[in-house]
């Protein structure tokens, strides 16, 4: 999820100059995202006018594909990099605003179910990745990073854990590359499998939120299926993200116990530092809507603002996916990651199908 974000970090002492640095990249994100939206409408309208049986390709896929083509065929000038790196800011902004489209009762019901599933998913993922890491003789800290990344929230979790367990930059880069490459693959495989299984929107959204590691890819994989599935994917993924502090703390304590990481003195402060605060914003927005602070039209406006923020995120997902860079990162961590991810995807699919039978998602 995380990348080289320039927005909140002052690169220069002049804040105006810093703000200006992100403008070209943000305009590029907006341009690609909007082109995706135009393509969705025009391609579908053209296919309809010609009576072609053409699948409805959502703006999400167009935006990602345009970004992918640009980042893998052209050298993007440095001028655009700071703005492109803001895609994570748009993701978090979109998630907070999306809270307005959730009724509190839905958050409690679906959030409760997803919390139960998240506990099982995290336990299974950690155990599975640790086992595979040992089988393939990966370095123990690289195994820890892969386990944390696949269990909780992808790149953010790896970055959060890196400092806590005192892992190498090289190990972190391997783990991040594996998680990002597999996240890119899941964008195409998850919706295809779900269509094959005729999954309903809620079940699929829950599966995308549980099975796809990186938040941006999980949101995109959900939105690729349907708007409703995208909403549920955000909820499930946000629940998973909320667990980041606990998992990283457990690993920090484990490595500190082995004398290979700094001792955690204040556990509560550690948990608060690692807790993704945007989750609180999501809940606050849902509560405000629950207390009728906004009219129906205003809720629609907030939902639409959330969609615009996600539009920029999806363009960023395509732009920062560089297949050449990923292929340089070595095969073994990728194989371990891929094996683990396939197994986790199967297990979470089984979990969601079972939950659907028990609670009727």
């Amino acid at each position, binding site marked *: 999820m995380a990348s080289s974000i320039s927005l909140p970090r002052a690169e220069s002492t002049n804040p105006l100059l810093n703000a200006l640095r992100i403008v070209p990249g943000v305009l590029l994100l907006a341009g690609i995202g909007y082109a995706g939206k135009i393509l969705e409408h025009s391609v579908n309208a053209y296919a309809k006018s010609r009576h072609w049986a053409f699948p409805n390709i959502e703006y999400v896929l167009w935006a990602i594909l345009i970004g992918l083509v640009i980042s893998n065929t052209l050298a993007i000038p440095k001028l655009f990099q700071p703005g492109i790196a803001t895609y994570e800011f748009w993701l978090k902004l979109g998630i907070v605003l999306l809270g307005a489209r959730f009724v509190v009762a839905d958050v409690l019901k679906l959030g409760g179910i997803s919390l139960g599933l998240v506990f099982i998913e995290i336990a299974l993922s950690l155990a599975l990745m640790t086992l595979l890491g040992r089988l393939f003789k990966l370095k123990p800290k690289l195994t820890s990073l892969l386990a944390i990344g696949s269990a909780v929230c992808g790149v953010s979790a790896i970055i959060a854990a890196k400092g806590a367990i005192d892992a190498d930059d090289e190990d972190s880069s391997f783990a991040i590359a594996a998680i990002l490459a597999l996240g890119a693959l899941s964008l195409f495989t998850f919706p295809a499998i779900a269509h094959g299984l005729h999954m309903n929107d809620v079940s699929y959204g829950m599966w995308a939120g549980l099975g796809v590691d990186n938040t941006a890819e999980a949101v995109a994989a959900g939105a690729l299926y349907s708007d409703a599935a995208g909403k549920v994917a955000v909820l499930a993924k946000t629940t998973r993200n909320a667990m980041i502090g606990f998992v990283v703390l457990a690993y920090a304590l484990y490595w500190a116990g082995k004398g290979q990481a700094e001792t955690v003195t204040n556990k509560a402060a550690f948990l608060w530092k690692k807790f993704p605060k945007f989750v609180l914003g999501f809940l606050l927005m849902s509560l405000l809507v629950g207390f009728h602070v906004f009219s129906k039209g205003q809720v629609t406006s*907030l939902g639409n603002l959330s969609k615009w923020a996600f539009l920029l995120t999806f363009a960023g997902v395509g732009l920062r996916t560089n297949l050449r860079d990923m292929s340089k990162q070595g095969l073994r961590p990728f194989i371990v990651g891929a094996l683990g991810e396939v197994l986790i995807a199967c297990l979470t699919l089984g979990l969601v199908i079972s939950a659907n039978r028990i609670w009727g998602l």
Partner: protein
Amino acid sequence: MSKDSASTPIPTPTPSPMTKERSFSLDAWALIVAMLLALAVKFDVFKNVPW
């Protein structure tokens, strides 16, 4: 081993900006901007935002 290769320092991997923990302050920015947008919608500065 030639003199040149012996004197060439072994390249060490450059830490990627992606591996730096810096995403968490983004949460504060996202919260502030979201709340400002919510206020703008509440007080009809942004009315009927299209999609």
